[in-house]
């Protein structure tokens, strides 16, 4: 069992050949620190201090952007959406609430209005990937890896951002935490990045008197093992101590925020406590899954309405608690692998589509607007789907460059030129 371990994407032949792609894909290289070929990016101290902490939210399943942000001003919306259309603003029960004379929010998304009106929440619409895949798994992979249609790159975009930037806190024991049972691809290969399903319950149990000697022995039991496990063990040790010092259970949100008891709200609340503790965690990832609404979509009452309420209530609380009430700059971005088809199917659901939307919330976001180059529902992609006019990497890239202070966009989003869309402040 002491032989060389297999790490996905490492592809040991590539690794030996020291190819650039092999290195990018090599988890072990990533864990060991920035590979030598990466440019050395110099950060001014004040730059580091002004960088935002990022909370990245993945909405898995393909969220129906045409319901979450309704293009009621598009003359084709009502006829094409048919039975699944949200009524025009003012049109009685379940009507959309107007945002800007063209787009509106359905009732279940209304909790977002507070942050939107405060100018802290931006919506980016008709946004997506150039990869036409309607496979959940390929599309999620494209988005989380940050390079569409590349099945060999194994590191995530957020991981590469961390690899090409200096830590915000030089003695951070953990730079990124995913509040999920497993590590998402966006953080795969990232330095000091761990999944912790429940940060408020992180200690070793058992005989208190032996706890420190057991911890010591555990660290020795992993001292001689191969990567990535050796680093993970060391990070886990440090993370246990770090998390045990934070009073998650006694955490009191600021600004009158009230988090729900659902897992998504709980994760956001843990993220808020973690960020305010200023322990050096500069990236947090969270998931809210179940958006694959092929049947009985339930946009006013039902599965999708519940998901939208969970999402918008969670973000509302986080806005009050952190964006409004904390001086620590934070940027939140939420995305889904694709949107859904313009026309509903016979089961009052929608099949896999193409472009979707992204939500960006934060202290320094050009919020209170819907950023879009609206393609028009009468100009669909592949005859039936919303066309993508803004690449998701433009939004993420702008965040990385301007809010996370990392100019190495060529490494974070290889072979792509990020176009500035003005979603965040510079």
């Amino acid at each position, binding site marked *: 069992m002491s032989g060389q*371990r297999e790490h996905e*994407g490492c592809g040991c032949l590539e690794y030996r050949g020291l190819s650039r792609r092999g290195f990018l894909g090599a988890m072990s290289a990533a864990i060991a620190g920035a590979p030598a070929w990466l440019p050395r990016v110099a950060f001014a101290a004040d730059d580091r201090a002004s960088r935002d902490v990022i909370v990245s939210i993945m909405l898995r399943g393909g969220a129906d952007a045409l319901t979450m942000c309704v293009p009621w001003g598009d003359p084709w919306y009502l006829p094409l959406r048919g039975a699944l259309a949200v009524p025009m603003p003012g049109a009685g029960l379940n009507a959309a609430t107007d945002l800007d004379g063209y787009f509106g929010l359905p009732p279940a998304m209304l909790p977002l209005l507070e942050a939107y009106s405060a100018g802290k929440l931006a919506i980016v619409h008709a946004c997506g990937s150039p990869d036409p895949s309607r496979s959940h798994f390929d599309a999620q992979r494209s988005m989380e890896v940050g390079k569409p249609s590349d099945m060999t790159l194994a590191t995530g975009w957020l991981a590469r951002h961390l690899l090409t930037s200096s830590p915000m806190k030089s003695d951070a024991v953990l730079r990124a935490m995913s509040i999920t049972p*497993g590590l998402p691809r966006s953080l*795969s290969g990232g330095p000091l990045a761990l*999944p912790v399903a429940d940060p408020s319950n992180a200690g*070793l149990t058992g005989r208190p008197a032996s706890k420190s*000697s057991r911890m010591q022995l555990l660290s020795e039991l992993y001292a001689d093992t191969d990567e990535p496990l050796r680093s993970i063990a060391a990070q886990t040790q440090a993370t246990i101590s770090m998390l045990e010092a934070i009073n998650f259970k006694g955490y009191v949100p600021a600004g009158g925020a009230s988090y729900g008891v659902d897992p998504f709200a709980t994760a956001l609340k843990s993220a808020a406590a973690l960020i305010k503790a200023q322990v050096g965690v500069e990236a947090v990832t969270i998931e809210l899954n179940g958006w694959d609404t*092929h049947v009985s979509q339930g946009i006013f009452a039902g599965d999708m309405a519940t998901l939208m309420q969970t999402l918008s209530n969670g973000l509302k609380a986080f806005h009050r608690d952190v964006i409004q009430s904390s001086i620590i700059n934070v940027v939140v971005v939420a995305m889904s692998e694709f949107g859904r088809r313009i026309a509903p199917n016979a089961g009052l659901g929608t099949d896999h589509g193409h472009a979707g939307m992204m939500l960006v919330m934060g202290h320094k976001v050009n919020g209170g607007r819907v950023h879009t180059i609206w393609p028009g529902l009468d100009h669909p992609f592949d005859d039936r789907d919303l066309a993508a006019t803004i690449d998701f990497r433009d939004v993420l890239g702008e965040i990385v460059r301007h809010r996370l202070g990392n100019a190495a966009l060529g490494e974070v989003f290889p072979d792509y030129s990020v176009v500035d869309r003005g979603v965040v402040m510079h």
Partner: protein
Amino acid sequence: MAALGREAYLEWQLAFESIDDSALEAELAARYPWLNMSAAEMVAGWIEEVDIGHAEVTITRAIRGRRQLYERVVEMWNDHFNITSSGLTMAWTRAVDERDVIRANAMGTFRALLGASARSAAMVLYLDNAKNIAAAPNENYAREVMELHTTGVGPYTEQDVREVARCFTGWTNHLANAGEAALTFKFDPALHDDGEKVVLGRVIPAGGGIGDGEAVLDILASHPATARHVSGRVARHFITPAPGESLIDRLAGVFTATGGNIRAMVREALSTRCQTHARPKFKRPFHFAVGVARALEATMPHAGQLRLKLAQAGHMPLKWETPDGYPDRTSYWAGALLWRWRFAASLMYNEMTGVEVDVPRLMFGARNVEQIADRIDSIVFGGTMPMLTRVLLEDYLRANNPSNGVMAEALGLAISSAEYQWF
């Protein structure tokens, strides 16, 4: 295995039908009577505990079943044809799916398994084929049957997805109030699109009825991409997380030569020539928890506690939300060492209600630190404990005057160690 030798052990496990597991199955059937019920009987009895019970049955079979290889194959197909169990209707049909689709065909031919899955009431519900009708096709099953179950992404176009959806229109279920037929598959000709279709370049003539779907399954099951896609699944499950081309070629060759005989593929995957170059595979939480329970001969009235622990690890049986099944990637699971260390500690400190490890019995006769370490080596590592691990555990035992409590701590540390996390 030591008694039989490797080859004989493999053949014994492959011929799972001749391994008597009736005592365990009788015990399970007494505790979980729905195990042998039809969906109609579950509807009539309105049995609400199927969902959590099903996860417990899976854990219990993995720990105590004698058909160890068979259970591993079943686990593979449960991932491959993943169906999330949530809600009563899904739980009932999912229980039938595992018994009559997955377990019944696990070692048979791939085409039979695929065909049974396509007619599984649970699959019809899960991938929305019940809503796939001529007037408005629903593409969910059509896409996943190609992408996940057979060819993988590549050979087909979006037009193929639409055509396959048309072929499967009318493949639906009897409703829950349909008496004995409740929640079983039916083909409804009135909902079927009977026009001509073209799938992967092959013409399926008009008027084929239910034969359209069967023709699609024939095309898919015999497609070369399916041999490779399924081989990748077998290789990742049984050999290595990142199988190379030559390994896939070898298994795909067996698939093609045997008409998709699963038993033959598993035999090849576990052959010395395939395993020799295999790198260690990181245990998923399920394998970790089940392996610990087996190694330490943990006793428990039922698997409820382990089910809760696995839920915390994001690996409760039958609960992966999306149709791709639980990941096999090391990078996905390796980060959560914390859960493993906490699991070991709570097991060894008797913090899992009802789950007991009899440390004095496991250690009976071990009179000194070296003998205790020998015993841990044999119990946890099957005699392959690395020297460094042994030295560290011996130091710990020496420093702490080995009482039962300290021996339990040492066992907990052994299963928390780096070496134990790999197959």
